[in-house]
């Protein structure tokens, strides 16, 4: 991510002057990302709109996996998050952010479903108060 154009020399990000070969190379990177993202999006829409392809109860999980894969494609091909030395701080920040996101989403779902199970339905509460 730190260097939008992949350079062999890592951190230097030299004057950012690009030759014609670099430009076409960089553009090709985005086109590969576009192709992969289009493929994953297409599969997601197909799974959601046709009932025959996937066992129905597994559809939300299949869609989640496809969404995660597409986010990975975006991170690598568009945001240029790599495993290179410039990127370590960014990857660490992303990992911490993901931890918080997981805690928030799954924590909320976990607690609220249990709450839902344990709380008396509203109609019965209303009846008891009469």
């Amino acid at each position, binding site marked *: *991510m*730190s*260097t*939008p*154009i992949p350079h062999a020399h890592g*951190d*230097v*990000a030299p004057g*950012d*002057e*690009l030759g014609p070969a*670099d*430009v076409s190379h*960089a*553009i090709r990177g*985005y*086109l590969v*990302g*576009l192709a992969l*993202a*289009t493929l994953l*999006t297409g599969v*997601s*829409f197909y*799974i*959601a*709109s046709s*009932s025959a392809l996937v066992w*129905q*109860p597994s*559809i*939300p999980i299949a*869609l*989640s996996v*496809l*969404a995660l894969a*597409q*986010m990975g494609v*975006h*991170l690598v091909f*568009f*945001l240029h998050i790599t495993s290179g030395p*410039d990127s370590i*701080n*960014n990857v660490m*920040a*992303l990992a*911490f*952010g993901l931890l*918080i*996101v997981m805690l*928030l*989403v799954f*924590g*909320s*779902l976990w607690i*609220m479903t249990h709450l839902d199970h344990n709380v008396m339905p509203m109609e019965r509460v209303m009846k008891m108060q009469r």
Partner: protein
Amino acid sequence: MSAGTEAFPGGVAGGGLARVGGGHAQALTEEPAHGPSKRIVVAYGFWIFLISDIILFSALFASYAVLSEATADGPTGRDLFELPTVALETACLLLSTVFCGFAGIGAQARRNTLYYGSMAATFVLGAIFVAIELHEFATMIGAGAGPGRSAFLSAFFALIGCHGLHVSAGLLWLLTMMAQVYAKGYRADIRRRLLCFALFWHTLDIIWVALFSLVYLVGVAPR
């Protein structure tokens, strides 16, 4: 004379960016002599902001996930969401994020046609996205499925509306960046701002991937 007490040298005329790295009287357009290059530091700082933005969206997303069944006998996602519209929105945003990448390449290579053309394409596609979303919201509210109808719809409008607001703000930022490059050229500080804008725009598309998959597609999927 120490740099701390001295007024900023002429380099700050570039628009009031705070200097990175304490005390070095460093003109904005220069790279520091040692340590990581300034663009890496700036991108890292902006990345931290973007992650906090992602956490904001995850909070809205969690509230939507909890409330998605609380339809109060009103319309559900299956009644309201139209997949062709969502597919069109997704295509617009995906293409605009690719054009945004092309614009970054154009700015680095200092090719005016590539830069301005790609930025214009990014803007048009983003504007189409916002227009489709506004039309979708207007249709839903007109059909009596506004944010006040049920907890499900409150959470839906908050989540999708927050993303739409981000995209609209990004469109304004995009126009600003076109104007800044036009007025000031491909200076190092302008290119850093452009890098931040590109990161912002790509991140919005990542958030949209989560939204179209887990809000719209899961909402209409057969079960």
